[in-house]
């Protein structure tokens, strides 16, 4: 019988939540790495028992942990993230040059085919790759070397490379996104990169339609249609039908088009989910109501999903990597909040229930569907 494993990264540790396919009763394991910030955990599609976790604190820096048994036991692996060559400068918050400094890994993306290959998205923004199961890391420096690096700037959470999407139909194509630089794509396995931000408009930068400088919060893709991308930008929900060559706004009827998380239904590539947040200065849901919005039309037309979610006095946030879906026949949707709840829906968002209510602030949620 199928099982579901939910990997939750929080402000003070990692948690592994497991259930059978009914997704009604959950076993909670953790905290793993208690007291550390776990920005992200993710499993290898090629070997579901191989997990990687990003563990950090301001005191002791960055660690990477690896599990070979589905999260029961872990071992620290390589944590030496060194930028290629002279790192150079990006823009600071006030537009002045600021040297590139490694701070942490926001996102780990295991290869679709090789459990020992994994990508790491770093702050200050850079993409690293390991081909030896996390023991050593090499920067794919063509990204920072694109030439626009001096114009990249940090978002409120830092200048982070937070999204890595591997194209299942083309092993040489990778999409990444950086706050606040925008989205980039490589078609040669990470050697060269191009910005893919045409159609984005951001009033927070001097030239609102500039090639780079956009605060992209997250991007999602359905594996069956790798040319179609959905983006939650700082403000605006966007879609691209040509692998990022151009973007159109699909915010439509949303109560706010600010937000962080976005994801796609496992079996319906035009069904997408966002969690609207009031604004960049008020990081909580509009009207104190926690609502997931679902579009079955790839954007523009949205419906509020509220059953089982708090509809008064709710002032949590849902961060960019804190939403995921499973691939069971009835698609499960999951998200975590800064209030420490992880909510699950076993029916594509129609009904919700908390798996756990009182974790530390949730930074990331990933889901594995296990045979």
């Amino acid at each position, binding site marked *: 019988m199928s099982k579901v494993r939910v990997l939750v990264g929080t*402000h003070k540790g990692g948690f592994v939540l497991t259930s059978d396919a009914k997704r009604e009763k959950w076993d909670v394991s953790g905290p793993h790495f208690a*007291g*550390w910030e776990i920005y992200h955990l993710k499993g290898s599609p090629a070997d579901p028992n191989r997990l990687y976790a990003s563990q950090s*604190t*301001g*005191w*002791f*820096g*960055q*660690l990477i942990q690896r599990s070979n048994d589905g999260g029961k036991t872990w071992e*620290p692996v390589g*944590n*030496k993230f*060194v930028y290629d060559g002279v790192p150079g400068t990006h823009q600071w918050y006030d537009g002045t040059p600021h040297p590139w400094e490694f*701070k942490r890994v926001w996102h780990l993306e295991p290869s679709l085919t090789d459990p020992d290959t994994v990508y790491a998205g770093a702050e200050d923004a850079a993409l690293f790759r390991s081909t030896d199961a996390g023991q050593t890391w090499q920067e794919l420096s063509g990204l920072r070397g694109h030439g626009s690096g001096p114009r990249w700037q940090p*978002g*409120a*959470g*830092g200048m982070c490379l937070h999204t890595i999407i591997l194209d299942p139909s083309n092993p040489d194509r990778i999409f990444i996104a950086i*706050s606040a630089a925008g989205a980039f794509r490589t078609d040669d396995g990470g050697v060269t990169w191009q910005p893919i931000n045409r159609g984005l408009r951001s009033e927070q930068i001097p030239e609102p339609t500039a090639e780079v400088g956009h605060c992209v919060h997250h991007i999602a893709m359905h594996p069956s249609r790798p040319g179609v991308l959905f983006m939650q930008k700082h403000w605006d929900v966007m879609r691209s039908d040509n692998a990022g060559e151009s973007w159109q706004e699909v915010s439509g009827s949303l109560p706010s088009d600010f937000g*962080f998380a976005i994801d796609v239904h496992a079996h319906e590539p035009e069904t997408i989910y966002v969690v609207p947040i009031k604004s960049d200065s008020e*990081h909580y849901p509009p009207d104190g109501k926690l609502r997931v919005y679902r579009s079955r039309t790839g954007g523009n037309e949205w419906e509020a999903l509220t059953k089982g979610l708090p509809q008064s006095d709710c002032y949590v*946030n849902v*961060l*960019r990597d804190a939403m995921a879906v499973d691939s069971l026949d009835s698609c499960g949707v999951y998200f975590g909040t*800064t209030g420490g709840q992880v909510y699950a829906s076993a029916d594509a968002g129609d009904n919700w229930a908390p798996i756990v209510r009182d974790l530390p*602030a949730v*930074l990331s949620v990933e889901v594995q569907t296990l045979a």
Partner: protein
Amino acid sequence: MIRVILPPHLRTLAQVGGEVELTVEGAVTLRSVLDTLEARYPMLRGTIRDHVTQQRRPFLRFFACEQDLSHDSPDTPLPDAVASGAEPLIVLGAIAGGCSPHIPGGQPLQG
């Protein structure tokens, strides 16, 4: 025998209980003690000193014999009492409360 007291998170990481006892070859300095510590517990590499610059991480401090050695040269001999094992070298996390200590005044959670 050199005694080193690590902060709790690093004790967990290195899977050690109380003090760590090290045999240090040659002069007993911060550098030689930390080199020996990291050789015996490789998982600590990068957590006390930067991998490349070997600079002390900014939110850690080194105390011994009721003195703050954090700003001493890493090649300064440690106090005799540390070298003899009478007193431990203490690696300590700065008191930084619960806020994100990455920029002064903390920062919003992920933004």
